[in-house]
């Protein structure tokens, strides 16, 4: 393929990934890997490497505004990153072993499966009910997990407590492993851990997760760098596109509340997930 055509395709993939990821709420990486592997013939290791780099880019880009919003909780995020970074290292080492044994079809199947489960959680799990802060437990005090944020929709301050830190941390370890294995930010798993496990309000979980993805993906990409899974031209161009795409997606998402368009994109992603699995099992 002519080089500038490929370059344009890569930037476009990043754009679409960042945009769709922001609208569906899954992050760009889960969109980028299927497009690169299924339609553009990029080896899955390079696709995962590029997706990781773009996950860092979008996290850093959005985290700067999230942090300013004071919705994300830096302490909770930081304490949970102990688990995600360790998990990310373990996951990247596992996938390196898988690639060295030429078992990349396994990664395709796993990717499809994780994508389907994430879509299911995104669809079902959006809690909009009234948040009630749970009674603090011992971990609330140890990890200083109380806080409050100003809710623009409710027009008041919402006080919250994080509880059951150990459950959150355990799930975070696995979120890290998935990140290293598949080259994604595993934001959905993080949100679920904080929402259901630690009983934090969804807004706090979502923005804290966004904030954490960068550090998790950095741990994975450092290991990926050494194994040579980062192809700088693919990763660089995809990241540039993803930043712009995520920015546009977030802007549009604030204005557009249509559920139909979101559903269409979710179905599209589900189809890609099925195709990943089909490719993995050799159909």
């Amino acid at each position, binding site marked *: *393929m002519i*080089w*500038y055509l*490929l*370059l344009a395709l890569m930037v476009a993939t990043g754009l679409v990934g960042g945009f769709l990821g922001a609208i569906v709420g899954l992050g760009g990486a889960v969109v980028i890997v299927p497009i*690169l592997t299924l339609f*553009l*013939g*990029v*080896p899955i290791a*390079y696709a995962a*490497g590029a997706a990781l*780099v773009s996950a*860092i*880019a979008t*996290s*850093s*880009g959005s*985290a*700067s*505004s999230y*942090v*300013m919003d004071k919705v994300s909780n*830096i*302490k909770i995020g*930081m*304490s949970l*990153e*102990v688990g995600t*970074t360790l998990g*990310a*290292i373990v996951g*990247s*080492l596992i996938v390196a072993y898988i690639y060295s044994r030429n078992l990349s079809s396994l990664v395709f199947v796993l990717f499809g499966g994780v994508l389907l489960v994430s879509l299911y959680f995104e669809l079902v799990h959006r809690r909009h009910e009234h948040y009630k802060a749970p009674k603090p437990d011992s971990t609330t005090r140890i*990890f*200083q997990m109380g806080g409050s944020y100003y809710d623009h929709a409710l027009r008041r301050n919402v006080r919250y407590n994080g509880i059951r830190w150990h459950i959150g941390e355990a799930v975070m370890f696995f979120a890290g492993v998935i990140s290293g294995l598949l080259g994604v930010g595993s934001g959905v798993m993080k949100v679920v851990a904080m929402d259901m496990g630690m009983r934090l309000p969804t807004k706090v979980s979502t923005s804290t997760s966004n904030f954490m993805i*960068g*550090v998790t*993906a*950095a*741990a994975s*990409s*450092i*290991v*990926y*760098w*050494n*194994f*040579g*899974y*980062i*192809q*700088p*031209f693919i*990763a*660089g*161009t995809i*990241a*540039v596109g993803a*930043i712009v795409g995520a920015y546009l997606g977030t802007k549009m998402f604030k204005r557009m509340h249509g559920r139909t368009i979101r559903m269409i994109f979710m179905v599209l992603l589900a189809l890609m997930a099925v195709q990943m699995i089909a490719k993995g099992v050799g159909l």
Partner: protein
Amino acid sequence: MNMEAQIGWLLRVGVCMSLLLVGAGMWLIASNGGGGGYSLAQLFSVSSTVNTSQYSPGAVFGGVARGSMDGVYYIMAGVMVLVLTPVLRVALSMVDFAYARNWAYAAITCIVLLDLLAAMFVVPALLPH
């Protein structure tokens, strides 16, 4: 400046710097017709053999520092800056927690930083090369 503002600022500078580096690298490669001893077609291919395993972070830094006209260094540097931004962010948080005398969180943040440093220095040493 408070901690949130510092972190937000650091993240934005990191992203902008890496965008500039990647852009500069692309431009150099396009105008030189290649880079790193490879042709354009070899560099911009989906299964290109040019990847991070051939370039140590030290070599990338050296290339940029001496103002090399080889675009590969700049693209690599852009990706490196992007990856290192969160690491710096963790380091900055650690200093901030220590400054606020929140020792529990200074220690927790130190563990996260150690995880990242282990990924950088310990993991590669353990791998057979």
